[in-house]
């Protein structure tokens, strides 16, 4: 498979924050139908390896575009801004302060193993925040304010991790 293509080009989709999920799904399936190693199980080793690599690339491209956080990260990577570094943090003090408070609330619920209602409330709130940050990113990316978008991406990483941590705790509490 041609490795010089970016993930959007693989699916003949425009490089953009807005994506047509249905078109992405359809194209992903169409490509996997011709590339998946299952179609090469009876071929020689070389062709099998080729199929494994191609299908792995398609899977990675699909997941990267489908997931908002990785899509945002990838869009900026294409603009030469690499967020895959530990030094990438936001300088928005207000936001960081807020995050710290929310984190404290989560630790408290974790320590007390509840109450569940508090966790649900936190979850709803966190998802709302995450969505608002996504919208902020979208408008900055739209007007090509990439450095601002890059800063927003750091917030997006925080917010997404927080949503995931809440969901983990919800699962843990459910299993008690």
């Amino acid at each position, binding site marked *: *498979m*041609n490795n010089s293509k970016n993930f959007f080009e693989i*699916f*003949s989709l425009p490089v953009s924050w807005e994506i047509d999920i249905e078109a992405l799904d*359809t*194209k992903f*399936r*169409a*490509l*996997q*139908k*011709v*590339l*998946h*190693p*299952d179609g090469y*199980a*009876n*071929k*020689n*080793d*070389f*062709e099998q390896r*080729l*199929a*494994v*690599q*191609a*299908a*792995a*690339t398609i*899977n*990675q491209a699909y*997941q990267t575009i489908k997931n908002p956080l990785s899509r945002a990260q990838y869009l900026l990577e294409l603009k030469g801004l690499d967020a895959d570094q530990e030094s990438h943090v936001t300088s928005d003090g207000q936001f960081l302060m807020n995050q710290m408070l929310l984190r404290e609330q989560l630790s408290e619920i974790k320590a007390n193993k509840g109450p569940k209602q508090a966790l649900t409330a936190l979850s709803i709130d966190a998802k709302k925040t995450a969505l608002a940050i996504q919208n902020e990113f979208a408008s900055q990316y739209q007007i090509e304010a990439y450095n601002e978008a890059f800063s927003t991406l750091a917030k997006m990483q925080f917010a997404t991790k927080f949503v995931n941590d809440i*969901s983990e705790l*919800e*699962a843990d509490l*459910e*299993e008690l």
Partner: protein
Amino acid sequence: MALLQISEPGQSPQPHQRKNAVGIDLGTTNSLVATVRSGIEAILPDEQGRDLLPSVVHYIPEGVSCVGHEAAEHNSTDPLNTLSSIKRLLGRGVDDIKTLGDTLPYEFTSDEGGMPRINTAYGVVSPIQVSAEILRKLAGRAELALDGMLDGAVITVPAYFDDAQRQATKDAATLAGIKVLRLLNEPTAAAIAYGLDAEITEDESQQRLIAVYDLGGGTFDISILRLSKGVFEVLATGGDSALGGDDFDHAIANWLRIELAMGETLDVVEQRILLEVAKSAKQELSQKEQVEIEVLETALVLTREKMHELVDDLIEKTLKACKRSMRDAKIDVNSIDEVVLVGGSTRMPRVSEKVTELFGLKPKCTIDPDLVVAMGAAKQADVLVGNNTDGDMLLLDVIPLSLGIETMGGLTEKIIHRNTTIPVAKAQEFTTFKDGQTAMSIHVVQGDRELVSDCRSLARFELQGIPPMVAGGAKIQVSYQVDADGLLNVSARELSSGVESRIEVKPSYGLSDNEITQMLQDSFSHARDDMRLRALREQQVEADRMLEDLRAAIEKDGQSLLDDSELQCLHLALDELQQLRENSEDHRQLAAQIETVGKTSEEFAARRMDASIKQALAGLSLDDALK
């Protein structure tokens, strides 16, 4: 050992002949083999008409005395040489045995490699060898029924099997001389057996969410799948590769032991007796409210209610795994359209009662839960071997447990997360932490816990020859690749110098490639000629496959994708292969030419793949234009 059928050399098969492909369910308690005949999948029974082969191997000083029903008869009389439930040990380390050991009354020896081995009258055997005996027996059954050598098999594994357990299964197949087309997850196989029903695939717009609850003798799996337009997409999978009906028997046996006022430590014969009694009591309680038990000259009564008390905790564990998987799949229990029961242990009314309660749905079990996995595997084998080319099925499966690497402080850093669609490749960069560091050891682990010590250690290897730099100066890229069998390959590379180290992850408790080759040779050592003939036959089959495949490819795409000289080159290589195929009796010579043709056709293969990508996308935009 059953000798496999070998065709006469030089006897060329008909082109486009149907290939012999089977699905094998290698189970903890029972194993099966199935195939597709005239479009319908069927279990291949033994000569007495029995579908199930008990997964039991009996050893005598001369070797394997018998496998299956006959072997099971030695269970109580010769327990140490009658190996059953061996799947529980497959791909496990010596340490695992400490937790499983008391439930498996064998004499273990651990030797180099950390893989547990069992002392028998024949000598020391590994779980992989024992599994190979079972596979060999099934392959023999299939070759007899299909009247010819097998072209390939799909072998099922529990979805929750880790890399070591999968690799061990594949090694067992290699040892049994079986070409593995794919390792297929058991719940996915069951979904295939059910899911190709017309009701599901005909309505193109419809998508259905299916939960497959698979409780076997020694393993539990739950898989959540989305079915739409011929696509089987596993959204999440979970389970416990050491929980099954066996554990119910042990819980009941333990109760018996206490009721009979027997001590903590029983001898193997007592253990076996209690287990057999427990097992039959469990089965009887599926029909009756209570059973009278006569054991060791004492009469006891076990009520259904009491049994529920004994096993409910175990069932509860499976339900928790179900909830976790639905959460991973990001779906609500109410959106599940169908629940499918798989595995002999789901015959227990208590199990289906609890599953019904959780999902709020009456589970489907219209296909015999003991047979369904093998039937699904047979369907998939038929597709993979190329018999069924009009099928438009796509199967997207996932890895069950995260794959990671050990970092500072004994912590795990995940590189590929659980429930990621396979095949998958991911790379991560690391750096040196000391000035002038020239080597880095890499510890590959599998599991979802934070501490390395709580995860499964898969392999350790070292990247050497890193040019000396200041701490943090080197860039070491570690790449993980998981193939469609769920098997992992790891490579590491220092980016500035290009120093590379690559390993196929061979778990510390597996067999090395050399060991496998040695064992294969040993098994043929009494019959050199058979080995030579078999090797030749295998190369001939490969040559035929290649000739047929490439000629069809040239006919289709030769003109458009190759220039005249490339085309001529390929034709020459193919003609030589054809000529050797007909006249050579040297399998090495034939193998060498197969290799040459393979190399010559690599560029063609790559171009064909690119063309098919273009075509797939072009086909879609055409569909759009026609709308």
